[in-house]
């Protein structure tokens, strides 16, 4: 990216050493000033594209249509919020998912709307110049902190260091003056794969270490670029975070169970399952539950938003969901190709309503009973209706025993 004029941002190859010499607050404010319509036009993004983007964001966020103009207005404001994007124990997959979107990409628009002063994978500056850019932004305060990757806590955090400092140290410093934190992807949200058994490096998510700043967990492995753009758009527009679930995830993206919105759900209901890879059912696009799909235990908007500019998502491509937006899915959802009863535990956010939904499903769909009933029994002792039991005979026997005992 080559930028003319006053926007001398280290991400764009500007001379951040000169910036460091100025008052950081004035300097970073100056960076945020630019003529947005002209800037978008220069990048080949038309007004129509921009408004389409605003509409898509409002739709993703489940906001009423009158909020589209508010989003557009906020994004056109000359004052751009500063942001720092830190990478710790990550694979950069979330960065890639965000940056590889096509034109006019959500990432382009977001990168224009925030003053992203530090992002290792795309910034031109390196070494001390890169660190100076982060330091200036931290000193100025009131920035959006985005974190990708888990944080190693074992052995003083020696397993992840940047510029000679541990991720533990860097996160504590960067979180100090942040106005909000976006945990990008499941690693930053819940620890994810580095935290999988036996968690060799003591990896944890951001919310295990930071408590004084609002945190939103954008889980997913990788994060969905549209959802990430939506949360940043929400923050830029309202300067706050949307409603979150018990796991700190925004309800607009994680409020629906994959299984309930799945395009193959009709086949589940009809008892049409893929039994073997490549069989007739697989070719016909039947339900992947028996092949290990974790959609019934996973909350994410994949069926609606999909990945790669809404091209596809795993289930559409013929592979079961692996539950990547749920905490500890590497341990609780594996083996991935075994069906759900073998899973040690469902996501922890099952509430009474959801259990009731499951109970209803159980009573209707006997095929699912053995999958869900055991979980329901473990989770609660419902008043009504009782879950369909896997071993009705065992219960009958018990009753008989009791009956037999009573006369005694």
């Amino acid at each position, binding site marked *: 990216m080559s930028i003319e004029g006053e926007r001398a941002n280290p991400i764009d190859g500007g001379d951040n050493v000169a910036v460091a010499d100025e008052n950081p607050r004035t300097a970073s404010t100056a960076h945020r000033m630019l003529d947005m319509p002209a800037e978008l036009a220069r990048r080949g993004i038309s007004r129509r594209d921009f408004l389409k983007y605003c509409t898509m964001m409002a739709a993703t966020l489940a906001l009423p249509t009158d909020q589209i103009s508010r989003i557009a207005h906020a994004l056109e404001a000359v004052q751009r919020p500063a942001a720092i994007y830190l990478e710790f124990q990550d694979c950069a997959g979330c960065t890639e998912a965000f940056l590889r979107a096509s034109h006019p990409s959500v990432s382009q628009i977001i990168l224009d709307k925030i003053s992203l002063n530090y992002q290792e994978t795309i910034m031109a500056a390196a070494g001390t110049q*890169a660190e100076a850019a982060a330091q200036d932004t931290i000193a100025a305060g009131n920035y959006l902190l985005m974190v990708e990757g888990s944080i190693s806590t074992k052995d003083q955090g020696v397993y992840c260091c*940047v510029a*000679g400092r541990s991720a533990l140290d860097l996160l504590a410093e960067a979180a100090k003056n942040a106005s909000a934190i976006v945990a990008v992807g499941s690693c930053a949200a819940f620890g994810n794969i580095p935290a999988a058994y036996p968690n060799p490096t003591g990896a944890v998510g951001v919310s295990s270490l930071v408590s004084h700043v609002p945190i939103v967990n954008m889980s997913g492995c990788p994060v969905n670029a549209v959802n990430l753009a939506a949360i940043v758009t929400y923050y830029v527009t309202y300067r706050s975070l949307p409603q979150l679930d018990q796991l700190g995830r925004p309800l607009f993206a994680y409020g629906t169970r994959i299984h309930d919105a799945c395009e193959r759900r009709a086949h589940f209901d009809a008892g049409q399952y893929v039994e073997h890879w490549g069989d007739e059912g697989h070719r016909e696009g039947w339900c992947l539950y028996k092949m290990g799909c974790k959609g019934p235990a996973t909350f994410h908007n994949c069926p609606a938003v999909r990945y790669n500019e809404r091209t596809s998502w795993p289930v559409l491509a013929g592979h079961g969901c*692996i539950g990547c937006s749920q905490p500890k899915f590497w341990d609780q959802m594996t083996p*991935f*190709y075994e069906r759900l009863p073998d899973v040690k535990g469902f996501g922890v956010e099952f509430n009474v309503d959801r259990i009731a939904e499951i109970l209803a499903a159980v009573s209707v769909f006997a095929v699912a009973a053995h999958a869900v009933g055991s979980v329901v029994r473990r989770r609660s002792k419902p008043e009504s209706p009782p879950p369909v039991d896997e071993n009705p005979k065992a219960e009958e026997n018990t009753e008989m025993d009791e009956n037999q005992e009573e006369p005694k």
Partner: protein
Amino acid sequence: MTHIAIDPITRIEGHLRIEAEVDSGQVTDAWSSSTMFRGIEIILQNRDPRDAWLFAQRI
């Protein structure tokens, strides 16, 4: 003889530190360090082999 350290190396995926000794504009010696470790090899042990690709593709 000057000893320089560039950390982080940017525009790559992963964490990299390069140290070099420079003598009259010539690099005479250099060291690279990968400064992040997750232990995916350790995590993969005793897992269902069918799951391995999902772990390994996230390296």
